């Protein structure tokens, strides 16, 4: 029983190790995308350091300079960047 538990723990550990970099890469790509979107709107940001997914195509971004933005795609298909307080 303890053997099985140990194997299960190790398997979970391995899975976490494998999944970790993949998630990190996705996260970095998303941050890069958001940084570009905010910069394209001419808004101050510098670099997006954190992204929270609110819904599909709806994100809350935190910039390196402290600014926070909501980035979403509206019904007309336009990317909207709203400054958050």
């Amino acid at each position: 029983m303890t053997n099985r538990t140990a194997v299960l723990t190790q398997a979970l550990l391995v899975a976490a190790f494998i999944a970790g970099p993949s998630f990190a890469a996705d996260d970095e790509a998303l941050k890069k995308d958001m940084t570009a979107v905010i910069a394209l709107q001419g808004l101050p940001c510098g670099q997006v350091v954190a992204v929270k997914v609110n819904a599909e195509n709806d994100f809350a971004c935190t910039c390196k300079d402290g600014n926070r933005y909501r980035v979403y795609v509206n019904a007309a298909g336009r990317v909207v960047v709203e400054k958050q307080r």
Partner: protein
Amino acid sequence: MRLAQVSFLLVLVAGCAGVAPDAPVTPNAEVVGLQTTTTVQPEPVAPQSTAPRPTAAATPATSAASQPVPTETAARASPTAAVAEKKSAARETQAPAATTRPPTAAASSATAARPPSPPAAAIPPPAAPAALDLNALKAQLKETKAIGVLTKLSLKNQVDDLMQQFRDFYQGKAKVTMVQLRRSYDLLLMKVLSLVQDADQKLASAIVASREAIWGLLADPKKFATLEG
């Protein structure tokens, strides 16, 4: 059994260690790309963009607004070439003058008669416009992984906005001038290039090569109409 498990774990962890550096490298490249866009970008563009812009600015805005568009575009094409030729000629003539004249003489004769213009053979012919494959360019932009989905959508929005401005201009609705439209076009192209140039240099050079050809389509109302249809 335990040894096998441990060795399996080690192999996987080593595998992950091999993957790990990829993630930090991309943001660094991105940061460098974003920061250096303003400095790196002008290199390929400078020879093309610096020449037409002053001419565009020098062209009276009133004439651009009041005259019909075909004349404006024609006026735009020929004076830019003329000014570019003049500039290159001036560079060629100034360079030898600086080397032959002593510095004191150069200071005193700054307003003196300039050396005669070089022979026509010395002037390099203007570069022929690159062949434009708009559909291929569109496909490349859609497929490139250099920019994210939302960035692409945002760029598309801005392209649509610019197209609308051209539409309004040709319909006489907008108060913008062709010079302003050219400025907006240049800015948009610069944005696209800055996003693409680090990760997809092939696409960036294709865009740079097509720059004037695309402008040719936009600046001519007839060609623009075919573009719309």
